């Protein structure tokens, strides 16, 4: 596929040409990445970010606190809360009763990491992942928190992680976008938290760096299909006319934008083939469906999206951003967390295993985690079988696989309440810096001037987490 096209003008970032003169834009479009990038030898070529929207409960999945069973129902001690702010949803509660998990935990992998029985498959790849229990964030509600992890700022307006990466590194595939977004709806029963197009927006970067949604129903890319009544030959005939006519105009005006437009129409035409081919899972063998689970045959399921993510990675897509909605368990946590985990556990692990089997895990970095964690105390009434948890920004668990990170490592330690970090605090900006580092990019040097300032993903913060690097 990569030999199909030799049009160097369109090599970079698929959607790559910004009007306004040849200047740097043209220079950039000739190479695969910005001048000077990579800053380091890259370990990863691409990232698959499995964002678990809503904030999965680390208490019930990854960060076991066996001593809490004895403290069930007691009010969270002030010595632990230390006056930290809590959301408007629980700040009015008369008590903050400690709610130990009701799920069983067991040890897995050589490091003996603890996983709950909701995630047996993820537990099964313990030796392939870096488990970080001490990620923390600045925001306490969904909108600012998810905007923060995706763009480095709680308030809207900044480019997303994927936009920064496609801006800095460009694309490896001329027929697909450098930055693809996949959405998967909730599996729990309570209302999902919404998502926002700003999460994959290019912010102040030129808009060609924004993520392109690949959809599970309707056109896989908006407007991809020829309209009813236009078949492929007709389309080709129209495009041929268009190409010739635009070419004539180009001779008169000498504006390089016209040549660019001609090549973009040709790329659009190729996408009409390459995208459906990519989305068509029917060519995958039975063994693959066994690996990802039966849901993988259902379009839009998290399992099918994970499989698509692998197919995108195979085709050189630089940044694959998947959102799984539905992790916001304020109430009915035992019921809904189980449903979420059922949908997510096997496919997440399968993706890592699949990449590993194909030899792609070395240069693909898989990220798994939400925008914050959940509180140790119960929101609403605590009963033996039922509880809910509020948002908790002060510590939560994420895990990573491949792409230059340690395998089988556990990093960070939280206190006995799983409320505060005892060792190795890792801030969202540190995660962002580390992800860029794996791609060979110095987060301090990937900048864009906007409103007189050189902005970067990590603002003025962020340290690469050496402990995570292999």
């Amino acid at each position, binding site marked *: 596929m990569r030999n199909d096209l030799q049009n160097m003008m369109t090599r970079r970032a698929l*959607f790559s040409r*910004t*009007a*306004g*003169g040849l*200047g*740097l834009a043209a220079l950039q479009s000739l190479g695969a990445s910005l*001048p000077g990038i990579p800053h380091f030898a890259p370990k990863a070529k691409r990232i698959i970010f499995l964002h678990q929207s809503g904030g999965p409960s680390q208490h019930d999945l990854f960060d076991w606190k066996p001593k809490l069973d004895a403290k069930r129902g007691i009010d969270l001690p002030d010595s632990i809360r230390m006056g930290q*702010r809590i*959301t*408007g949803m*629980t700040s009015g509660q008369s008590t903050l009763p400690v709610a130990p998990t009701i799920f069983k935990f067991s040890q897995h992998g050589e490091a003996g990491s603890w996983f709950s029985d909701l995630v047996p498959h993820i537990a099964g790849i313990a030796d392939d992942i870096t488990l970080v229990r001490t990620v923390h964030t600045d925001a*306490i*509600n969904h*909108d600012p928190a998810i905007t923060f992890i995706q763009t480095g700022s709680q308030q*809207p307006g900044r480019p997303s992680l994927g936009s920064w990466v496609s801006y800095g590194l460009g694309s490896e595939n001329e027929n697909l976008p450098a930055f693809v977004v996949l959405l998967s709806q909730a599996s729990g*029963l309570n*209302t999902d*938290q*919404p*998502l*926002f*197009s*700003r999460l994959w*927006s290019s912010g102040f970067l030129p*808009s060609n760096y924004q993520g392109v949604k690949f959809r599970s*129903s*309707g056109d896989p*890319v908006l*407007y*991809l299909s*020829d*309209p*009813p*009544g*236009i078949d492929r*030959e*007709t389309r080709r*005939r*129209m495009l041929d*006319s*268009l190409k010739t*006519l635009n070419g*004539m*105009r180009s001779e008169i*005006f*000498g*504006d390089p*934008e016209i040549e660019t437009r001609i090549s*973009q*129409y040709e790329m*659009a035409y190729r*996408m009409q083939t390459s995208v459906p081919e990519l989305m068509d899972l029917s060519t995958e063998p039975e063994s693959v469906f066994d690996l990802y689970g039966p849901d993988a045959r259902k379009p839009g399921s998290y399992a099918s999206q994970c499989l698509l993510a692998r197919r995108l990675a195979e085709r050189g897509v630089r940044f694959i951003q998947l959102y799984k909605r539905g992790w916001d368990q304020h109430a009915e946590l035992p*019921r809904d967390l189980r449903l979420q985990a059922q949908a997510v556990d096997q496919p997440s692990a399968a993706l890592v295993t699949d990449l590993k089997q194909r030899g792609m895990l070395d240069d693909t970095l898989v990220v798994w985690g939400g925008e914050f964690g959940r509180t140790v105390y119960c929101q609403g009434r605590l009963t033996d079988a039922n509880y809910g948890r509020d*948002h908790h920004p002060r510590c939560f668990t994420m895990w990573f696989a491949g792409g230059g990170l340690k395998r089988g490592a556990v990093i960070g330690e939280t206190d006995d309440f799983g409320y505060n970090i005892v060792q190795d605090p890792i801030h969202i900006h540190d995660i962002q810096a580390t992800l860029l580092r794996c791609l060979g990019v110095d987060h301090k040097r990937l*900048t864009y*001037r906007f*409103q*007189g*300032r050189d902005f970067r993903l990590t603002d003025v913060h962020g340290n690469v987490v050496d402990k995570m690097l292999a």
Partner: protein
Amino acid sequence: MKYLLAGSLLALSATAQTAAKIDFIRDVRPLLSDRCFACHGPDEAHRMANLRLDTEDGARAAIDSGKLVARITHEKKALRMPPPSTAELTPPQVKTLQAWVAQGAPFKTHWSFDPPKAIDPPAVKNDSWPDNGIDHFILSRLEKEGLKPSPQADRATLLRRVTLDLTGLPPSSNELGAFLRDKSPAAYERVVDRLLASPAYGERMAVPWLDMARYADTHGYHIDSSREMWPWRDWVIDAFNRNLPYDKFLTWQLAGDLLPNPTREQLIATGFNRNHMINYEGGAIPEEYLVEYVVDRVETTSTAFLGLTTGCARCHDHKYDPIRQKDFYRMFAFFNTVSEKGLDGQKGNARPFLMLPDESQQAQVDRLSSDIAKAEAEMDRSGITGLRKAWEEEQADKPRPRSDASGLIAHYSFDGSLEDISGHYQHGRITKGEPGFVAGADGQGIALDERSLVDLPGVGDAAAFALWTKVSARLDNRPSTLLQGASFTFWIDGGRAIGRNRRGSRFYISTGGRTYRTKTETVTGPWVHTAVNLSQPQPAIYINNARVELTDIDEAAPERWIRASLDDLRLYSRGLDPAEIEFLAVTQPAQSTLRIPAKQRSTDQRLALLDFFFENGAPQDLRTLNRRLNSLYDERDELQYQIPTSMVMSEMAIPRETKILGRGDYRNGTETVTPGVPSFLPPLPAGAPQNRLGLAQWLLSPDHPLTARVAVNRFWQMYFGHGIVKTGEDFGSQGEFPVHPELLDWLATEFRTSGWDIKAMQKTIVMSAAYRQSSRSTPALLEKDPENRLLARGPRFRLPAEAIRDSALASSGLLNAKVGGPSVNPYQPKGVWEDIAYGDTFSSQIFEQDHGDALYRRSLYTFWKRTAPPPGLATFDAPDREKCTGRRSLTNTPLQALVLLNDTTYVEASRALAARMMIEGGKDPLAFGFRTALSRAPQRAERDLLARQYRDQLAVYRNFPEGVDRLLSNGEIETPKELNRAQLAAWTTIASVILNLDEAVTKE
């Protein structure tokens, strides 16, 4: 992108630099700012080595001691400044600084902080070329660069250019003909005057201002439900159309409410500062968002009127411009005075807002208010409170009537279980998932959906049933089954919007092979009581104790699918009579409420109980009075849903105290500040009030260096793609030095002395010879000036998103030219909102496409949902409007090709254009198409090519009637019956090619 900025600056100033005379403002200050100020600039807290280079005293010290040159040329890398890791100087830059020092190091303040100088246009060699002042400045620079201006664009191209620029629409075929026929020297000027007078002018001018003002139809942030700011948007259009001078345009938007006896439109104008996003995320902290709103106002006002980026100073002193953190919070204090809430907007506009009734609505409001006041006064005099209390006490001792249990098959109260409490042991069981018990209409209810289902054996073959249902808006808009028995299905449709912020659904009962539907929608969201008699020949449905009209429809019940909550379900083997239904819908809930301590009753429960008392325990006259009041309240509520509103600014009686916030965090208030303006700019004019009105007066004061420059620069950008200062949102240290500084000052001065006449300024620009040049380029010119900053040729660039769609609508004859009104929802692929939306009771989560005329309104009327902006426009770089945008990207992507080729909007427009070509084009459809869409005739080679495509395509469609039918069914517009359909289909492919041409989406 550092290199890009620096590169283009250097390229253009190369000539000047080789002349050896260093210009501090142009050559040195930008360098110091970019490479030195971060550590040696205005930010006191982070200033290194106690050295500052942004003031003359500071710089002088470093120069006189010889340190400056020594450090920038130090042979040891470790001692060289600036540190290589941050901002190393290139050798030519070092030379520039050395030359500057050698020339005595003259120092000036930043150029844009000095007021514009009144300058006469310079003399030029080729004095036959200039048409007005602009041309003298442009040509003078071209002559210095050794360049010549291009010849005037041909007349058709020029007409198309100026029409697109001033109205956002292409010229019509008639307008083109008229202009080409009018050979008089004043022909062009007449066109310009005509365009400036057309209503489309205001619409075109409004678009960049809507970006700047971050105008949208939803609140943004998390839930992103509807708001209503279109009255403000219409005010903007109108202000441009009647040429409201810029000083008023500015003052009304910033402080219309503070003017003496403000008019309605002056108040609406203040919506400029309410267009920011507003949050209503559950659990969010109000104080945090109150700060964000005010910060947004400061940033937007600064960018729009001052051309300064103050945002940095939110957290610390600005690194490049002399804006201290304190200055930021003094600006903040101007806007921290609105009586608003931190979390608001869940039901449309957030307070404060203005009700905007039309005359007849106002008359109704007046009548209702007076009637309600009278009735309430009467009620107050009646001693009702005492009566009600006594009644309630009396009820406590009374035995409670029960409903007639005869024929009762089963009764599910859903109070935490699926038990049948009728005594018939028809207990339900869970068949799937774990259904949740939720707060019900009475006690608890049960929440069901496809993943959590129950089997209720009592439902089997009932003859009648009664239950409470609660349905939220569902994202997929699917009908939901409520109950399914052996011989019936009771269901509800996916609903539709009812006016603003409400949705409603119709109920359906399918039985005996027929389906009966309620004639009107019931508002969904709250609990609704329904009772159904299945008796033949026709069933009866009661909603909230009122029998409703049914329509017999020919539609089967949909496949079973459920997402609803149910409560207090009773099933009977016999029919229910109205008295029983009233008992179940009214009496029984009132009895339940009586059992709840008064303080714990919800508002709904209290109101229902009050009505129950009036109906059952109050004297006849008061019962009548209560019914009358209720109907007046209903009428008033209904009217309030009809009356548009618009959010406005207002001053609190006691404004909030403003504190400097450490690191910009709402939790870290430190020093208290009062409203004020940055100290490096002129002070507030003498006598100006210390509020937003004073701020407006300050911006307009004669010695203000920025206001007029920033405004004319923005106008310039509309015509030439770039402003004279390319960084129009940043006139500060880090902004670009103007490519034509004297021209900028001349325009600014002209603008002010004209009485801030906006139309006159547009006319000056488009009447210039510079604007009228041909946009054809040569390789040499491209090499020398790729971005066309010097204007040795006319502007040529892709149209803005709105103009692309509007042009297609206009040339196809579909355009609906109606100005103003609520926003519309034209074609949009399914799922764009629903994929990411919050599926509950909020508005703007489910997309409902409009039909008919609304599909063809100009694009600035397209409903703008911030978290999922209209994709057809966003693909062409329209911003999401979350934040103030002063410049859009201008990209060229394959996704744009897909939109123009495949979006229903454009396929339909091609179809309509093709029909026009056949009908109005007579013998030469192609010529008509070119003329209408491109304002020119096809060339020979173009004719040949498209004739061939037409022939080939016609041959295909003649043998492919299904294809013809499919193509001609894109979009809702009807195909003229008289046309040959295969020919029309073939012409449609030609029209589509025309609308896809680079030229069609480009201003040439």
